[in-house]
């Protein structure tokens, strides 16, 4: 009897060893923030897209890791001569995870829901200009616009424009049912979400059978979990100071890429004295970007002089407009009537780029006489008092949405920049489809906000990925918040 027990134990131990000797077919990915729920079409939280984008939910088009937009659930499309009617041909045989087929009616439902009057979509502006969505036949959808819109295919690739089914929409927040290569399995609140490979997927079967997203908010705990190899990859590692240690360790790879996050010293343009452009210009000249990048991000980040991503072909380097020049800043302040400086508030949300960057910014502003009182706030407070309440002087925040220069055309947006000229530029941009003309307008727009010193432009947030050495297929850059599981595999 004792012998048998031993034999069983030994054989199961052998099986375990054999199991670990085989190539892994799962992955555990660390995320700093846990999503509030799992509906990407009704909240702005990036963490939702990190989990569900392209894994559970797919749109008509989708982003690839290099930022390009490729066909998703739409196989192909035709654009009418005047640019106002898009006819999408849907893929055959696409099924939702509950077994129902995905057809033109689902597309119509999803887009009408996103752009409807009572829609809670966080990016409703993406759907502006759509006048009608028609299901021509089960495989064909027609989208009619009121005017040509050169960015429609780009807009439809966003996580906010994914296709959902009317049958499963009620449970979407806790039990998402999509068309993606992975199905939702389990959500242990405060700890993890697990997904499993979808055997019915319309595309190629992904290499990994399962994936776990583990939520670790504390940077020290994230470091420990990575070092102990409890997790295989961390999407965007929260402590840049630890990266050299991962780089020096052969067990790990470090992927430094760029995000769409323009990190800015956001300025309340309606609150005196910031309503005076000379004061805003003084702010810009008081800031030393390289010190902030070195001190807060340990060197990771690219200086920007306007609200535009440097990796975008239309980017213009305007950092020269606001070079570090404390004397000029003091002169400008004196000219504006603040020779002795003034006092203001600096609200800082939790990420280290804001908290550490804020300490440096406050010290730099102090040298030209601006006394910025640091107020550390949690995210909920930041959204409440700064973003919605607009009661702030300065704040530091990374705007991570791709191609979001359009927010400057919204005078009610929290930094309250109100320029007729800029609004006309954006209207012109939306009506233009010719790529070269669009680039020219985008560059003019970048110049305009830079010359108006709307905000202090600090740096483009870097994406700091850490993973085990054998994990392949991770996105180096983050054109949108996403972790494309179907691209992942383990090296032999």
């Amino acid at each position, binding site marked *: 009897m004792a012998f048998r027990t031993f034999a069983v134990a030994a054989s199961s131990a052998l099986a375990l060893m054999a199991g670990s000797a085989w190539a892994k077919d799962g992955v555990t990915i660390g995320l700093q923030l846990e999503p509030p729920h799992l509906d990407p079409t009704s909240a702005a939280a990036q963490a939702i897209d990190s989990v569900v984008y392209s894994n559970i939910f797919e749109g008509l088009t989708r982003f690839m890791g290099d930022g390009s937009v490729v066909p998703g659930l739409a196989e192909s499309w035709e654009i009418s001569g005047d640019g106002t009617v898009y006819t999408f041909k849907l893929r055959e045989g696409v099924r939702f995870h509950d077994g129902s087929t995905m057809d033109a009616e689902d597309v119509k439902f999803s887009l009408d829901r996103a752009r409807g009057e009572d829609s809670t979509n966080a990016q409703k502006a993406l759907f502006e200009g759509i006048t009608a969505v028609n299901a021509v036949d089960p495989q064909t959808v027609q989208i009619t616009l009121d005017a040509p819109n050169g960015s429609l295919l780009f807009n439809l690739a966003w996580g906010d424009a994914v296709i959902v089914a009317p049958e499963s929409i009620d449970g979407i927040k806790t039990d998402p049912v999509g068309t993606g290569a992975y199905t939702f399995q389990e959500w242990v609140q405060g700890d993890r979400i697990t997904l499993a490979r979808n055997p019915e997927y319309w595309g190629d079967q992904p290499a990994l059978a399962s994936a776990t997203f583990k939520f670790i908010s504390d*940077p*020290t705990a994230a*470091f420990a979990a990575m070092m102990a190899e409890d997790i295989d990859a961390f999407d965007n590692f929260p*402590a840049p*100071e*630890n990266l*050299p*240690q991962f780089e020096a360790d052969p067990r790990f790879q470090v992927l430094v890429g760029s995000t769409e996050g323009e990190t800015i010293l956001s300025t309340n343009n309606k609150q005196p004295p910031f309503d005076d452009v000379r004061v805003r210009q003084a702010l810009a000249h008081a800031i030393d970007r390289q*010190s902030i990048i*070195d*001190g807060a991000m340990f060197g990771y980040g690219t200086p920007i002089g306007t609200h535009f991503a440097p990796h975008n072909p239309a980017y213009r380097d305007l950092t020269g407009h606001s070079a570090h020049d404390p004397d000029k800043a003091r002169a400008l302040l004196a000219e504006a009537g603040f020779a002795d400086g003034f006092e203001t508030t600096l609200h800082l949300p939790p990420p280290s780029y804001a908290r*550490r960057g*804020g*300490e*440096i910014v*406050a*010290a730099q502003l*102090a040298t030209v006489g601006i006394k910025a009182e*640091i*107020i*550390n706030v949690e995210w909920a407070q930041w959204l409440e008092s700064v973003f919605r309440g607009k009661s702030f002087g300065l704040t530091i925040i990374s705007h991570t949405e791709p191609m979001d220069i359009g927010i400057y055309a919204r005078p009610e947006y929290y930094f309250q920049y109100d320029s007729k000229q800029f609004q006309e530029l954006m209207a012109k941009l939306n009506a233009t489809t010719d790529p070269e003309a669009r680039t020219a307008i985008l560059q003019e727009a970048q110049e305009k906000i830079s010359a108006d010193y709307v905000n202090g432009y600090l740096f483009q947030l870097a994406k700091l990925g850490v993973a085990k050495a054998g994990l392949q297929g991770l996105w180096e850059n983050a054109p949108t918040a996403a972790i494309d599981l179907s691209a992942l595999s383990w090296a032999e």
Partner: protein
Amino acid sequence: MTRNLILGGLLSSLMLLAAAASFLWTPFDHAAMNIPAKLQTPNAQHWLGTDHFGRDLLSMIMVGARTSIAVALVAVGIGMGAGVPLGLAAAARKGSWLDEGIMRGNDLVFAFPSLVIAILITAVLGAGAVNAIIAIGIFNIPVFARITRGAALSLWEREFILAARVAGKGAARISAEHILPNVMNLLIVQGTIQFSLGILAEAGLSYVGLGAQPPTPSWGRMLADAQTMVSFAPHLALVPGLAIILTVLGLNLLGDGLRDHLDPKLRVARA
């Protein structure tokens, strides 16, 4: 003079001296950042090294001592200022509704985990040194009230108090003139201990971001900032950590030594 008293006195006065000196002189401006010179280990120029913004750690520790002392001192002041009169009043009216009310109120405050309530107070009123003082101070009140009442109760039974009563002195006057001076040694000892606990509490609150806000240096926040850098720049955590440990140790030894020194009963026992 016992060894405790000497060692404790030395450590405590070292901290007091550092704080006092920081008003006149620090090696560098504690708030001046010099990013290219960040994360230096202790060297001839920066005796304790520099932090992740290139600020001089010694200067920050010196000014941070000021923050710690100010918070702990005012907190003990609040505790004594409110607790001692309450304790005296309770003892003077032993068994009355006043005594019951004060002591049950004390029990109520005692029943709450103090740091949790301190977090609640700073979360409601906002983070900052002043609110940290209030939070820590409130929890000092029952400590002093109890000690005062306990000691005063036995004093009220003594003959010289009886004599004072016979002489026609009122309870308030007896408390102030006869009871208070005789519980003073106890209060000094307890005050030293509470002072060290106050420094610890301030460091704890600052560590979780609810104490003194940047750019005011604080030992607790220095520890928190150092957390992710411990593996490659251990001096960032060691320096404020040692400052806290040595200060608290020093004050505790001082408290112990003072009790040995001031308590006549212990002195007799030793002799």
